[in-house]
C-alpha cells in the first residue's frame, strides 16, 4: 500500500480496489503456501500416476522395488492427489474466497500458514506410509488413522478463521459460494473423523465397514471437493464476465438438494455386494436424485454464461473453470446413470469406473482449481503469469489428455464389463483386450504430465516474479491483438 492512498481520500471505486488489495495481501502468506504445496503434490501425484499407469500394461516396469509395486503406487497416487493437490488447492481457494466474500482480512496470520506446513507433513507421512506398506487398504482412506488428528487440527483452525470472517462479514446477505464453503469445512472433518472411528474401531462391524467406507469416500467428492469446486465456479464465472449469477432461487435449490441427496449416494459402490438390498437402493435413489442439483446448477451457470462465451477465447481462468463446470454436469449425469442396477452390472469392477472418477476429480475439480489459481495467484503476488503460451500448452494438453483418458477407459471398461458378464469368454482374454486401452491411458497421462509441468513452471516463475507487474492480466491474445477485445469484468 502506498502512503499516497492514505493521505488523499480515494474515490469510491478506488477505495473498493484498495480494500480488495488489502484483503488479497492478508491472504498472501497462507494461500500462496497452500497453492505452492498443492502444485508440488500435483507433480508428486503425477509421477506416481504415470508409474502406476505404465505398470498396468507393462507389469515388469520397476517391478523389483517393493515400494513401487502397483498396489502401493496406486493408493499413494490417490493420497497425493486427494489430500495433497486437491485438498490444498481447495483450502487455499476456500480461504481466499471467504476473505473476499465477507470482505475481511484473513485472520489468524500465524496459525493459518502453520496449518499449511502441518498439512504437508501429514500428506508426506501418509504417502510414505502407503509406499512403505502401512496402508490401511481401505479405499480413499489408506493413509494411517493418526492423520485424523493432524488434519483435524488444521481444519479446526480453518473453521475458526472461517467463523470469524463469517461473523464479521460486511453485508448481512451471503453469496451462494459461501453456503457451499461453509458446508465443505464442516462436512470434511465430520466425514474424516467419523470414518476413522467406523473403520478402525468396532463402531461398525464387518460388512458395514464397507458401507462406512463408501459413505466416506463418495462424500469426500460430494461434500468436500464438489462444494469447493462449485463455490469457485459460482464466484469466478460472474467475476470474469462481469455479470451476476442468473438466478438466486436456482442457487438456493441447487445447494440444498446437493446437501440432501449427495450424502446418500455412496452405497451405489456396493451394488451387487453383500449388504442389505434396502441400503443399496437408498444409495441408488440418492444418486438418481442428484439430477436435481446438477441440472439446477448447470442451468444456472449456463444462463449466466449465455452471451459471454466469447470470453473463453481470452481468459485462461474462464477456460479452465467453464471446462470444469461442463464436466461437472457430465460426470454427475454419468454417475446417476451408472448407479442404475442394469448399467452398474456392466460398469462396476471395470476401468469404466476409473474413467468416471477422473472425470470428476480431474476434469471437474482439478480444472476448476487450475482456473482458480490462474485468477487468485496474480492477485496475491502482484505479478502476472509470464507466458500466455505456456498457459495455452497447459490448457490444451490437460483438456485433450483428459478427453483421451476418458474415452479410452470408458470404452475399454464397458467392453470389459460386458465380456466379464459372459462366462464363455476366458478371463485372460478380457485382460488382453484391455491392454491397448491401458496404453492409451498412459499416452493421455504423458499429455497431462506435460500440462502439469507447464503449470508448475508458470507457478514457479510467478513465485519468482518473472511476470509483468500486476494491473495487466495475462490474456490469451494472438500476436498484435489489442487487449481491449478481451475486456470483461474482473480479469
Amino acid at each position: 500500500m502506498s502512503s499516497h492512498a492514505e493521505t488523499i481520500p480515494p474515490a469510491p471505486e478506488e477505495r473498493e480496489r484498495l480494500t480488495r488489495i488489502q484483503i488479497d495481501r492478508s491472504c498472501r502468506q497462507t494461500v500462496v503456501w497452500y497453492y505452492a504445496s498443492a502444485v508440488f503434490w500435483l507433480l508428486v501425484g503425477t509421477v506416481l500416476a504415470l508409474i502406476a499407469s505404465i505398470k498396468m500394461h507393462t507389469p515388469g516396469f520397476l517391478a523389483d522395488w517393493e515400494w513401487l509395486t502397483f498396489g502401493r503406487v496406486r493408493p499413494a497416487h490417490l493420497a497425493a492427489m486427494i489430500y495433497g493437490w486437491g485438498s490444498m488447492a481447495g483450502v487455499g481457494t476456500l480461504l481466499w474466497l471467504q476473505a473476499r466474500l465477507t470482505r475481511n482480512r484473513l485472520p489468524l496470520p500465524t496459525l493459518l500458514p502453520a496449518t499449511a506446513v502441518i498439512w504437508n507433513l501429514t500428506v508426506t507421512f501418509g504417502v510414505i506410509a502407503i509406499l512403505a506398506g502401512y496402508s490401511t487398504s481401505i479405499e480413499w482412506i489408506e493413509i494411517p488413522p493418526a492423520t485424523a488428528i493432524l488434519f483435524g487440527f488444521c481444519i479446526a483452525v480453518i473453521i475458526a478463521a472461517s467463523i470469524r470472517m463469517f461473523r464479521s462479514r460486511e453485508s448481512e446477505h451471503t453469496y451462494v459460494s459461501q453456503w457451499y464453503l461453509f458446508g465443505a469445512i464442516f462436512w470434511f472433518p465430520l466425514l474424516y473423523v467419523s470414518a476413522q472411528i467406523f473403520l478402525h474401531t468396532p463402531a461398525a462391524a464387518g460388512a458395514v465397514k464397507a458401507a462406512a467406507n463408501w459413505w466416506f469416500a463418495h462424500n469426500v467428492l460430494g461434500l468436500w471437493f464438489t462444494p469447493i469446486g462449485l463455490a469457485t465456479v459460482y464466484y469466478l464465472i460472474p467475476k470474469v464476465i462481469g455479470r451476476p449469477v442468473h438466478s438466486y432461487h436456482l442457487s438456493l435449490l441447487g445447494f440444498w438438494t446437493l446437501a440432501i441427496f449427495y450424502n446418500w449416494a455412496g452405497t451405489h459402490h456396493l451394488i451387487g455386494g453383500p449388504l442389505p438390498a434396502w441400503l443399496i437402493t437408498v444409495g441408488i435413489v440418492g444418486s438418481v436424485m442428484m439430477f436435481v442439483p446438477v441440472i439446477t446448477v448447470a442451468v444456472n451457470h449456463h444462463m449466466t454464461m449465455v452471451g459471454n462465451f466469447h470470453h473463453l477465447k481470452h481468459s485462461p481462468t474462464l477456460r479452465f473453470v467453464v471446462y470444469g463446470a461442463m464436466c461437472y454436469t457430465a460426470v454427475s449425469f454419468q454417475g446417476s446413470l451408472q448407479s442404475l442396477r442394469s448399467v452398474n452390472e456392466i460398469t462396476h469392477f471395470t476401468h469404466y469406473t476409473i474413467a468416471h472418477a477422473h472425470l470428476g476429480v480431474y476434469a471437474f475439480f482439478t480444472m476448476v482449481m487450475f482456473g482458480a489459481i490462474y485468477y487468485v495467484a496474480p492477485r496475491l503476488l502482484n505479478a502476472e503469469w509470464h507466458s500466455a503460451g505456456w498457459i495455452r500448452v497447459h490448457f490444451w494438453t490437460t483438456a485433450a489428455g483428459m478427453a483421451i483418458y476418458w474415452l479410452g477407459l470408458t470404452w475399454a471398461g464397458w467392453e470389459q464389463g460386458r465380456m466379464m458378464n459372459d462366462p464363455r469368454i476366458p478371463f485372460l482374454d478380457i485382460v488382453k483386450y484391455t491392454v491397448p486401452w491401458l496404453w492409451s491411458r498412459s499416452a493421455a497421462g504423458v499429455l497431462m504430465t506435460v500440462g502439469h509441468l507447464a503449470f508448475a513452471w508458470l507457478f514457479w516463475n510467478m513465485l519468482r516474479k518473472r511476470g509483468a507487474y500486476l494491473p495487466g492480466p495475462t490474456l490469451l491474445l494472438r500476436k498484435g491483438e489489442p487487449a481491449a477485445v478481451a475486456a470483461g469484468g474482473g480479469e
Partner: protein
Amino acid sequence: MNRAWLLALGVFATIVASVTGLVLLPDRQLRGTQPVQDEERGIAVPAGYFGDAEEGRKVYMDLGCIYCHTQQVRPEGFGADIERGWGMRRSVARDYIHDEPPLMGTMRTGPDLMNIGARQPSEQWHYLHLYDPRITSPGSIMPPHRFLFEVRHSADGLPEDAVRLPDEFAEKKPAWIVPNDRARRLVAYLKSLDHNYEVPEAR
C-alpha cells in the same frame, strides 16, 4: 439466505441423517450376525483367520491386492460370477464377520478371490504365480512379486516349499524359488479364502 443458524443446522442435519441411514442402521441390522455350523466341515463358519493366514491378510493389505481383486461374489443373474466358478453362491454379510476391515474391493483387473483357496489349493501354483504371474497365467498383467522370494541355483539344503522355476523363466538354470515368510503367510491367507459353505440367507 442470510441466517447462519439455518445453514449450520442444514449442514449438520444432512450429514447426521446420512450417517444414520447408511452406517448406523445397517450396523444395527447386521450386528450380532453369528457364524453357522457347517455340517460338512464340522466347524462354525466363517471360521476366521488364524496364525499365518491372519498375518498373511496384512501382507495382502500392505501390497494393495484390493486394487485389482475383489472378494465378493455377485448374486446369480447379476453378472456371471457364479458361472465363472468364483463361488457356489453369492456373498452375504455373514461371510465378513471376521473381516476387519472387509476387503471387498471395487475393481476386477484380476479375478475375484472370495474362494481362491478352494479354486487353487496348490501352494506351488501360488508361489509360481506370485513370483511371476505369467508363468501360470500367460497374458496376465499382474505385477511380479519377485521381492517375496529368494532364487537359488542349487538343490542342496532347499526348504520343503521351494519350487523349481520353469527353465524359460530362469535366467540361470536350474533355479528354485524360496518363498520368504511374507510370501508363506500371504499364500496361507489366500488358501484360507473359501466361503463355499451354505448359509441360510443365500439358499
